């Protein structure tokens, strides 16, 4: 039988002025199950809390109702007091007679009637409360970082420097990401590789970072604190232990005309290659789609060319190497897979992307994208930093930049702003001006979005000091006449059409998430938006968490980001991961859903509505070990306690602890006439 204690607080005059607190306490005495009902001036004061503790001890209370302020205010206080008296804290609830009653009503009689109702409602709930215990989950204190760009590098280093082991998985042959391709960075114009390369080396040498380059995440199982990740280590055809990175193999490879991914197709590489000189790890990789030996093998012909193997003094070339699967236990995962640019070619990866036929779909050789310009401007690039046209190697004297290509364009591209283009176009005009002193840079823009420290000053400098001509408007068509690109556009400030000639055009194309992000997101059970960007758990308050506990997101895989943003996010994820790893056990509120195994029919409506992937399938076996039923199991480590599963369950076979049907039913009953 329930033995409930009711404690009505006057909150000084806050409640007492409009509610007859003593009357409420007296009225509650008549409720079956209530064995103690008192009122007091300040229930949250030390003497007030002592009254609760004493009553629990003296009257043997099985439940405590504090009729006072909002539970958001003092629920923790009174639950702590309840626990202090040896009663389970979840047997204490608050009846909100201040915010929801005394403060919003002036009629004392009505307010008192309502306060009695509110208190009775909570009394009925508490009668049906059961003791709950904090859930403790063991935590594997190692992290997985997916993506070896600047965000992944920063997250890995911060976590490793914080004393925890990190597995860093990069799908390409080297870490570094897009930042390693950049020439100089805005708004300081410092050399990108100069600031990045030391960080890459630091990753490689860090005793607590295990780097899996040329690898991809194959599968992910488990939940916060307890993920089991399988990584596919793709065959490089080079023995990592034997190779000393001398580069002899790449020099003898006969297939030297392969467009280099690192140089965005503007330079060439061999079939066995190191993507760029500062690559980490400094290991060559055989591109099996381009290597003569593998092309012959694919056609069933005998191996012919083995020049690289012959040139290798260490015998490190291994044409028979296979992909390997390695499994790692981790407690947290950081997703930092970065971005790609909207392609300027005709073939588009998605139906809603239409490409830009009016700009030649990339068929005019001197129309390039922003990353290609970075490679041209980079000292390590195919032109050693000279701005030269891809078509004939001449220096362009008239260069035109078009902003918002694929961004802010729901018809043919993305409705969102790619955020970084305004700044990098301003940077490009400056780099151009520094290298081609007699050249003229022209920019077609929609708006200049330069929100960031030093950003506005930087873009003003491009216009005012570095001679860039900015035209507000769009270009409607471009075509080639001889070696000149004809441009037809419209100046929306002057309100008149513009025709101009250019030697080279750079399209500032939209940032999109990496291809395959949807498949990865599905493996991780994290949600993503219609563009493929990973969704954060809350746009304001939980910007680097995903809706799957223990999985965090950093950099441009969440939304278009510049380098400082990506690094800040990465450090934020590291601090979240280190916070999670602070204790061996993760403690969670016990207000999670729990399945009644006897009644569950296994329809998995709950699984479909669960935003966190907390519902798993559980096999019920007979004595012989045969699976006789498959039912739902809610992983308490993942459940966040929203209760949508319970409202959806036809047979109410899943119960949200703390808000069970029994409790709510009791509350509704209490409000009856």
């Amino acid at each position, binding site marked *: 039988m329930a033995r409930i204690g009711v404690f009505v607080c006057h909150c000084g005059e806050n409640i007492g002025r409009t509610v007859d607190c003593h009357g409420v306490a007296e009225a509650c005495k008549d409720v079956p199950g209530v064995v103690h009902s008192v009122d007091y001036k300040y229930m949250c004061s030390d003497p007030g809390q002592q009254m609760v503790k004493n009553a629990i001890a003296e009257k043997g209370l099985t439940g405590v109702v504090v009729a006072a302020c909002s539970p958001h205010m003092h629920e923790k206080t009174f639950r702590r007091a309840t626990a202090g008296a040896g009663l389970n804290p979840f047997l204490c609830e608050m009846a909100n007679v201040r915010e929801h009653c005394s403060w919003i009503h002036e009629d004392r009689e009505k307010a008192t009637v309502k306060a009695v109702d509110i208190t009775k409602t909570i009394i009925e709930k508490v009668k049906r409360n059961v003791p709950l215990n904090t859930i403790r989950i063991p935590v594997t204190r190692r992290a997985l970082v997916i993506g070896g760009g600047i965000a992944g590098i920063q997250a890995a280093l911060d976590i490793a420097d914080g004393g925890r082991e990190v597995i860093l998985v990069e799908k390409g042959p080297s870490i570094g990401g897009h930042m390693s391709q950049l020439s100089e960075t805005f708004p300081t114009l410092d050399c990108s590789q100069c600031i990045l390369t030391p960080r890459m080396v630091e990753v490689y040498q860090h005793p607590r970072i295990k780097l899996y380059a040329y690898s991809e995440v194959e599968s992910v199982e488990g939940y916060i604190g307890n993920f089991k990740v399988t990584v596919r280590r793709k065959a490089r055809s080079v023995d990592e232990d034997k190779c000393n990175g001398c580069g002899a193999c790449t020099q003898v490879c006969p297939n030297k005309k392969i467009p280099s991914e690192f140089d965005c197709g503007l330079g060439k590489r061999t079939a066995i290659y190191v993507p760029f000189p500062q690559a980490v790890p400094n290991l060559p990789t055989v591109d099996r789609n381009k290597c003569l030996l593998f092309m012959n093998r694919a056609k069933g012909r005998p191996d012919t060319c083995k020049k690289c193997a012959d040139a290798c003094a260490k015998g490190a070339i291994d044409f028979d190497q296979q992909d390997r699967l390695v499994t790692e236990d981790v407690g947290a995962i950081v997703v930092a897979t970065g971005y790609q640019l909207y392609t300027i070619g005709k073939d588009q990866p998605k139906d809603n992307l239409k490409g830009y036929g009016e700009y030649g779909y990339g068929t005019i050789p001197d129309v390039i994208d922003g990353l290609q310009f970075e490679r041209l401007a980079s000292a390590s690039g195919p032109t050693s930093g000279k701005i030269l046209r891809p078509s004939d190697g001449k220096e362009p004297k008239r260069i035109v930049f078009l902003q918002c290509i694929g961004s802010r364009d729901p018809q043919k591209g993305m409705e969102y702003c790619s955020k970084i283009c305004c700044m990098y176009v301003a940077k490009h005009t400056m780099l151009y001006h520094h290298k081609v002193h007699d050249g003229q840079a022209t920019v077609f823009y929609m708006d200049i979005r330069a929100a960031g420290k030093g950003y506005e000053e930087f873009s003003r400098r491009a216009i005012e000091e570095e001679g860039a001509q900015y035209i507000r408007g769009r270009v409607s068509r471009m075509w080639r006449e001889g070696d000149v690109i004809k441009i037809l556009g419209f100046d929306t400030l002057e309100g008149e059409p513009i025709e101009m000639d250019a030697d080279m055009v750079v399209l500032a194309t939209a940032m999109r998430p990496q291809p395959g992000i949807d498949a990865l997101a599905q493996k991780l059970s994290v949600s993503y938006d219609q563009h493929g960007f990973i969704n954060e758990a809350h746009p304001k308050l939980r910007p680097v968490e995903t809706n799957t506990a223990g999985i965090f997101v950093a950099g441009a895989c969440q939304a278009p980001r510049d380098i400082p943003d990506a690094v800040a996010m990465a450090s934020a994820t590291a601090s979240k991961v280190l916070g999670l790893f602070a204790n061996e056990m993760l403690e969670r509120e016990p207000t999670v859903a729990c399945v009644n195994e006897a009644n569950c029919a296994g329809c998995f409506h709950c699984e479909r509505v669960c935003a*966190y992937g907390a519902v798993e399938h559980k096999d019920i076996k007979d004595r012989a070990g045969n699976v006789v039923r498959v039912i739902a199991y809610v992983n308490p480590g993942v459940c966040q*306690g929203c*209760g*949508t599963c319970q409202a959806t369950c036809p047979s109410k076979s899943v119960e949200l602890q703390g808000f069970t049907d029994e409790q709510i039913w009791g*509350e509704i009953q209490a*409000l009856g006439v």
Partner: protein
Amino acid sequence: MDATTPAVAGGFEPRITAFVCNWCTYTGADLAGTSRLQMASNVRIIRLPCTGRIDPMFITKAFERGADGIIVSGCHPADCHYNAGNYHARRRFAIFRELMDFLGVDTGRITFSWVSASEGGKWRDVVNDAVTRVRALGPFTDYRKLVVDPVATATGVVPPEHVGKEVPA
């Protein structure tokens, strides 16, 4: 007559049960209190973690227990503390509302709203509007008349959930 005007003596005062989510509407109602926004005293709030937790059975049960009106309120779309509970609730209650309408329940008795934690004023308006509307509709005697219980009438044994109810002979 607005909702806060004291009812004339013997006038009908509706009883309204509100099912609200903890993170937006409950907190918005807290804010209304903190801001001392005066409103009708006819509403009794039952706190749930999320609108996703609100079962249509809560509403039928509340009507059975004599509620004249119902309020269901939670986070605005995209604001749900649990990402999607309100979206699931939105579908559930869109269907439920049409079902109730089809069965002849005046849907003016059931109010659905999104009230965020910062919308104390909106909460007051939702409460006052609901009270005014339901007051005009009068007591939900249709549902209360369903109390007729042949078992109770025949045996004189009143099931526990009927205790305190008027059981017509």
